[in-house]
């Protein structure tokens, strides 16, 4: 591991100031010399593997700014402080009641220990588990821009069928993010230029020709809060996660579903997919396919077809298209049948 200087800034302004001083504007946050650490579950792992090589770590856990560790609930929505831990949010009574899809997505992620450590902001920024990204002896455009992608013709069973490019097919493996993108969440960030709000759907970048550009954040920007708008009908929502083993594994396919029903028919649907795409994936074509329709097996399957219409398989991951469709269809019907 590269040696690093460890600092504990006292507030957001000083953390940003230190980050600006030791990074330059064209650094990607993931490649910058100075990086922020909260739970460390992702970054410490990647530092051990030589994938992340900061020489300065700014520990955000001692920040004193108000609200960073709070979950604030009102009818206008929920505001999650960036340093709230995954486990705390998963167990929060109002989160479970108002937004089951959020509580599910957190509860089904990682393990009890990791959920106690990992911050919510760090969780949404977690980096891919692509084996060729994790192991530095392989070519990887995300890790070393321009070096090539060993996954394209490699063992790509875990890889993405949606949102991929010829430069990168790495999957975004998070779960919480699918709930957030379905609920039109907003991310609050502070950097040296200004404080700003980023729609969750704009936070992550599809790989295109620049897979090393993973998010919209600048190298000295810190997520301070995640805000989810109030949505009374979000009580009818869930997150379904399918994986190789029952627990403590990343998804092969997952679906976040939020439904507004009028009797049997769909007034509005919000759908996001995980485990199958390069970024948190909002399935708008599936949402449109359901609008005004009676939700039954046939319409759920039609929506699932629409969600994967543009899917592009590689040698080992074609199974994810069928698995993803069945996962979404099942999630839609289970959400319909929820007692709320």
């Amino acid at each position, binding site marked *: *591991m*590269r*040696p*690093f*200087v*460890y600092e504990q800034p006292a507030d957001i302004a000083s953390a940003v100031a230190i980050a600006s001083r030791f990074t330059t504007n064209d650094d990607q946050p993931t490649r910058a010399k100075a990086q922020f*650490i909260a739970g*460390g*579950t992702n970054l*410490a*792992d990647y*530092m*051990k*593997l030589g994938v992340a090589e900061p*020489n*300065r*770590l700014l*520990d955000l*856990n001692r920040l004193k700014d108000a609200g960073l560790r709070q979950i604030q609930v009102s009818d206008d929505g929920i505001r999650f402080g960036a340093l709230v831990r995954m*486990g705390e949010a998963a*167990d929060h009574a109002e989160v479970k009641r108002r937004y089951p899809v959020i509580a599910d997505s957190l509860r089904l992620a*990682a*393990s*009890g*220990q*990791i959920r*106690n*450590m990992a911050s919510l902001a760090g969780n949404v920024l977690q980096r891919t588990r692509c084996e060729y990204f994790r192991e530095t002896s392989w070519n990887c455009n995300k890790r070393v821009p321009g070096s090539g992608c060993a996954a394209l013709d490699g063992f790509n069973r875990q890889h993405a069928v949606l949102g991929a490019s010829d430069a990168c097919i790495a999957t975004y493996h998070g779960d919480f993010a699918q709930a957030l993108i379905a609920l039109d969440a907003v991310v609050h960030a502070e950097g040296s230029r200004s404080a700003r709000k980023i729609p969750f759907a704009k936070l992550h970048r599809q790989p295109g020709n620049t897979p090393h550009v993973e998010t919209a954040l600048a190298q000295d920007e810190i997520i301070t809060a995640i805000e989810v708008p109030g949505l009374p009908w979000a009580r009818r929502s869930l997150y379904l996660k399918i994986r190789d083993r*029952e*627990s*403590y594994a990343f998804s092969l396919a997952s679906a976040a579903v939020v439904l507004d029903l009028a009797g049997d028919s769909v007034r509005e649907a919000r759908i996001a997919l995980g485990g199958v795409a390069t970024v948190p994936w909002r399935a708008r074509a599936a949402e449109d396919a359901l609008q005004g329709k009676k939700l039954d097996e046939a319409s759920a399957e039609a929506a699932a077809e629409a969600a994967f219409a543009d899917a592009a398989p590689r040698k080992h991951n074609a199974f994810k298209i069928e698995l993803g469709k069945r996962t979404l269809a099942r999630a839609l019907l289970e959400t319909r049948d929820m007692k709320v």
Partner: protein
Amino acid sequence: MSVEPKPRQPVVTSLKINKRSYDISLDTRTSLLDALRDHIGLTGTKKGCDHGQCGACTVLVDGKRVLSCLSFAVMNEGKDITTIEGLASRDGKLHPMQRAFIDHDAFQCGYCTPGQILSAIGCVNEGHAESEDDIREYMSGNICRCAAYPNIVAAVLQARDETKGA
């Protein structure tokens, strides 16, 4: 103006482990796990994968179960750390969870056991040991390659009932 610190320059870190304080000089890269085992000599906490995938290194920090392999020691200054060595009382009486693991023969080789026990205590304290299914789900971060899982679940149930309200 203070002197600019350099990478590789050891920092003195004060760690509170099992109610005892240790001031040790550490390279910032040292994980909490390596600090416990190699610098302080508390080798009860085990290193399995060293990447947060097996749970063998689980300890309690401020009462919560965490993975000591994914935490830099310097980040834990001033926190209350509990390891397997800190569970029994001074007269040698075992913690109910330790006793339960023996009663139910909840291990074979024993390598994952310290992590299992600390994780189980955290699991019960979090209120996630309500049923056998609950225990299986919330203990899934601790891998046992001898597959003593049924006996581990039985041990957690026993200790849960003994420590309720404690």
